């Protein structure tokens, strides 16, 4: 099914919006059949950690550098190679510009 031929068809955003609205209505119906005695900011809503003391918000919050640790550990070698050229030194940036332009010019001269 190609969009250029058939238009967005199933990917039409209006269809997605209608589906989202229907799902939102279904979710609301499920929630409305929940516990009526539920009250916010009371003992009912306190976090329970098997009787342990609950740490403060600062300790509970997951920090950005902890996220995807496994991904970065697996690709350690890739990142070692990738990060190396990003020296932050402007001389290196200029070298890249000149070398890539020269390489491209030679390629075009030889290949056409």
């Amino acid at each position, binding site marked *: 099914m*190609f*969009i*250029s031929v058939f238009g967005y068809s199933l990917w039409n955003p209006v269809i997605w919006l209608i589906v989202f609205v229907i799902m939102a209505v279904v979710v609301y119906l499920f929630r409305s059949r929940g516990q009526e005695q539920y009250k916010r900011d009371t003992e009912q809503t306190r976090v329970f950690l098997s009787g342990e003391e609950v740490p403060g918000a600062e300790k509970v919050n997951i920090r950005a*550098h902890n996220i995807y640790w496994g991904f970065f550990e697996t690709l350690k070698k890739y*990142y070692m190679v990738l990060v190396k050229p*990003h020296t932050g030194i402007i001389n290196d940036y200029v070298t*890249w*510009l000149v070398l890539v332009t020269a390489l491209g010019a030679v390629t075009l001269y030889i290949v056409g």
Partner: protein
Amino acid sequence: MSTLILHSPILIIAIPLLVAFLIPLVGRASEKARNTLVISALVFVEFLVILLARDVFVNGIHVYTLGAVSADLTVPEHFIVPVRIILEVDGMSVFMGLITATVSLAAAIYSIAFMRKETGRDNFYTLLMLLVVGMFGMEFTGDMFNLFVFLEVASIAGASLAAFRLRFADSAEGGLKYVVLSSIAGLLVLFAIGLLYSQYNVLNMAAIASFIQYTALDKIALMLLVGAFVMKLGGVPLHMWTPDTYTVAPAGVTAMLVAASQASMYALFRTCFTIYGGALNLMTVGWIIIIFGILSMFIGVTMALPQTDIKRLMAYHAISQSGYMLLGVGVGLAVLGNPEALNSYGITAMIGSIFHIMNHALYKGLLFLTAGALFYVTGTRDLNKMGGLAHKMKFTTVFFIIGALSIAGIPPFNGFASKVLIYESVYQFSPVLSIIAMVVSILTLASFAKAFNSAFMGPELPQYANAREVPKSMIIGMAILASVIVFFSLCPGLVIDWLVEPAANALVNQGLYINTVMGAVVP
């Protein structure tokens, strides 16, 4: 109204230029008067761009010859080549003009509150207007040397704006990197223009296109231009300045630097499709651009993932998204000489990429503005120090979600609309390239899920107990971009039919571009 439309190309460039020089005078009288002048000028320019766009899409290419008896007198009597500076606005130029106008307006409104605590605001708005002048000039000009001039105007204004907040040590470094690399890129462009002028004795783009023979010197000039423009748009491996500069610039300025990088991308496409066109080795040059695209996509997103500085993360994503545009247009260029392939998937690839240019300018601009909002409230860009901000910054959270889902290519947002066109068309050219593009989208979603979780999710942190939503002008600036994104998301077909497809056809139709200026003159 017809006079306004006739002179609109030069007015769109001249009005911001005039306002840039008036700002220091008006700013002495009153800050409110200065802000009103800036916003009014940009609103009027937006109106002019819309008028011009309508004229171009209905009546065809709009030429404007500076200093001539009539605006469409491109080749004077007794001459066989154009001798004046000509502004030639086709579908692609005016498409880029719409992006520039919208992003500039949103960024200027946003900056009213964001820059309130900074000193030297008159200088800031003067430079902002000069950056706008540079961008419009690059997009509308039909003259190579004029392109160089406006490239330099945009580069210097952009670098000055990036380094504006000198109280931060890294601001000067970011601005310096941008200005040094832009100067060298400008010199490469000037050298290329010199090579072309020495052979063909003309500077007009249409005239060069009609004379070009793809000699050895032309090949060197092409690579000089490609290298310079790829560096300006932040393409890998010439991208390293991008995170350094985008991170330190004020948020509104970063959004405009993104739009400026798209203006450089436009210059690259104009060079390849219009100036060189069918003369060059389409498959070779097409693959060079595709390789730049693939490298940008993959390296951009993998470098973004480990970042904990939110603006640096977004800057790497800007590099990655530029890769999609290079990929699609590269495929279009590679099959330009093959009518069957061009009609089957080439034009679709170009439509997807050109649509992606506009979508990217909008959602990346929005994301940088939300990053600015986070910095405004928390005083830091470090995601490790943020958390639970969704409790206090509801508008910013919603705008971030819109931007993040768009950039990740999640339906029904506009990012998906352009990406699916690129996936489908590039798949027919090479399935591997399309699969790489899809993997990059998944990694983009992962990256923004990380950023969203770190900044907005989780319990309220005690240090942000007194945090509040950002001022109204910043919300309005973000809302302008978000509402355009939502509109594009709901009506992608409309945008493609009215804006994108004419732009793609304008790029492909080199003959019409040449004939509009050169007419029936035989060199």
